[in-house]
């Protein structure tokens, strides 16, 4: 069990009703954590269309999480 900080942006933030939360989790990867949090907050977007950043750097979904990480969840982007 590790504790990380999850941060939500745009549609995720509005859906979750919060922008940051501390999460105690058994998730080993960012992908596992997304699965857990998507279920909790009702995020409907497939992970393949979303992005994750860890400690302010874009990261792969399969990267292993470390205690204290700040994990940023980005819904599908729509610039332009």
């Amino acid at each position, binding site marked *: 069990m590790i504790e990380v900080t999850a941060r939500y*942006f*745009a549609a995720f933030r509005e*859906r979750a009703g919060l922008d940051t939360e501390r999460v105690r989790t058994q998730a080993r990867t960012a992908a596992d954590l997304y699965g857990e949090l998507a279920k909790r907050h*009702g995020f409907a*977007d497939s992970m393949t269309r979303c992005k994750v*950043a860890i400690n*302010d750097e874009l990261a792969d979904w399969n990267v292993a999480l470390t205690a204290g990480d700040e994990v940023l969840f*980005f*819904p599908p*982007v729509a610039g332009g």
Partner: protein
Amino acid sequence: MSFKITTAVIDPDARKRELTQSAAGACVTFEGWVRNHNDADMDVRGRATQGAVADGEAVQALEYEAHQAIAEKEGARIVAEAMTRFAVTVVHCEHRVGKLQIGDCAVWVGVSAAHRGAAFDACRYVIDETKARVPIWKKEHYASGATGWVNCATRTT
């Protein structure tokens, strides 16, 4: 070369002057404007509009949000890639965030090059990659009062 996220009004004429190079024989710029209707067919990737929002619904304003630090880092990578892939002299991109009105310039790309082919290709590359990769989100405010995040399955109204 540069990639900038800004809350200020984009001034295409001023930005274009930054492209000037004596070696440049071509200049291609792109401006993305806020349009007045929701139009899923115009986007490469589909968007899931749920509830009462239908394609063609009148859009009154757009709100852009970005993670500025990561957006500028990823944007800088895209601009650097364009410099490497195409024979261009200068590449700049600027994307506005905050609340925009119909007709406002949301994104600007400017490229100068010795020849037109590379300038067209690099400009297209930068806008396409920016739309696909940079953490920027767009919320449409409809005439009905509803709002919708473009391209997302999750939405609140």
